[in-house]
């Protein structure tokens, strides 16, 4: 058993914090790299089935983490189609599951932001002879600071979820144990000080990241108008 303030000096606790950040930030980075161009293409493109795709994407923002965990588990399990990769119960599997969870958020929020901006930019850009991928990338780059909201929403979802990482990671001590799974485990074991300490660290990290993001956004908006 731990005592509450003392637990914050615990090396194990900071290892858990480190792995949490590593998994969630990796997932956010991958989901943004895939989701932002996808959202921009969806905003600028006009093709049959686009509306259905937009609705589906918006709906996928509410994907239950345990269901994503289950599906990724089935894919990565020894008998599953991707079982040969040997990823189940590794941080890699956790990154995959969280990426799937965040991707719809990145794409859907980006789609909305680019679509709003596109209404303003379309005539000017088409007049200059810009269309297709270049138009999408130009708008994406121009509203990059507004997209911080999508990044933060994704990060919030990743760092807060427990269901998916629990199922595909297995909450193995020293290997795949992250903040949320530890909190769940220690609470059920009755080690409330460790659970509480981790909870406070988790909230503090999320708050710090959001404050930093807001600071960056305000600075560049003053700089670039």
């Amino acid at each position, binding site marked *: 058993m731990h005592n509450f303030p003392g637990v914050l000096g615990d090396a194990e606790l900071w290892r858990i914090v480190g792995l949490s950040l590593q998994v969630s930030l990796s997932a956010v980075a991958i989901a943004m790299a895939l989701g932002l161009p996808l959202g921009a293409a969806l905003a600028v493109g006009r093709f049959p089935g686009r509306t259905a795709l937009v609705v589906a994407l918006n709906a996928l923002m509410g994907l239950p983490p345990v269901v994503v965990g289950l599906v990724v588990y089935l894919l990565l399990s020894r008998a599953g189609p991707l079982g040969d990769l040997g990823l189940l119960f590794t941080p890699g599997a956790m990154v995959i599951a969280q990426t799937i969870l965040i991707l719809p958020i990145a794409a859907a929020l980006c789609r909305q932001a680019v679509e709003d901006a596109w209404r303003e930019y379309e005539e000017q850009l088409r007049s200059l*002879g810009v269309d297709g991928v270049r138009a999408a990338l130009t708008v994406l780059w121009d509203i990059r600071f507004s997209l911080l909201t999508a990044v933060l929403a994704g990060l919030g979802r990743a760092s807060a979820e427990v269901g998916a990482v629990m199922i595909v990671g297995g909450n193995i001590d020293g290997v795949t144990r992250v903040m949320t799974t530890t909190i769940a485990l220690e609470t059920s074991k009755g080690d409330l000080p460790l659970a509480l300490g981790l909870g406070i660290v988790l909230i503090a990290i999320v708050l710090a990241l959001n404050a930093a993001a807001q600071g960056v956004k305000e600075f560049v908006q003053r700089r670039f108008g």
Partner: protein
Amino acid sequence: MILPLELHDVSFSAGGRQVIGPLSLQIAAGPATIILGANGAGKSLLMRLMHGLLPPQTGRVAWQEPDPRRARRLQAMVFQRPIMLRRSVLANVQYALKVAGIAEPGRTREALAALHEVGLNSLASQPARALSGGEQQRLALARAWALHPEVLFLDEPTASLDPTATREIEAVIRAFDAAGTKIVMATHNLGQARRLGDEVIFLHRGRLVERAPVEQFFAAPRSSEAAAFIKGELPWI
């Protein structure tokens, strides 16, 4: 050369209402053409059809250059409300040149020359969105200037500007004209039409009612609609 531009029986409807045409006309190199008409006469729409931002629902818009991308490259358009990218003044002009396929170092040289032409060179490193309305419109003109277009479309470029900014914009438009760029400008400012125009195309409810040299149009309009418009006695106002 992409001029002359020919419109054959062009029409456009929106919301079940015929807003343009059917209308046929030719825009040739040379005289600065002013498109006049009341709000809702179809001035902006006609320019968008000419520039290719909207496809006509019937009829044909034909440049001498059959490849639409190459025809577009030799046109530029300045809108009523300038749209600037969130970058520096200089970078906004460089962007247009980059899209047009102009490589460095010529790109930056051309961009700086264009900013100099409109008197914005001292603001080159400022964020474009921090400029005043008049400065942004001059930047829009610099962006067009850098492209050396054969035709420049202007859609009420001074509608939301004060008299000083309007004079500055008009000076740049005159410079385009002097440099041999064909000016096609929509306005409902009669003074501006007289100051900048050589000929007038007068639209009334989407139809070409009258086309005449500027002096003749204002001194002796042939149509009753144009006469009423000049007098400011429009029946629907």
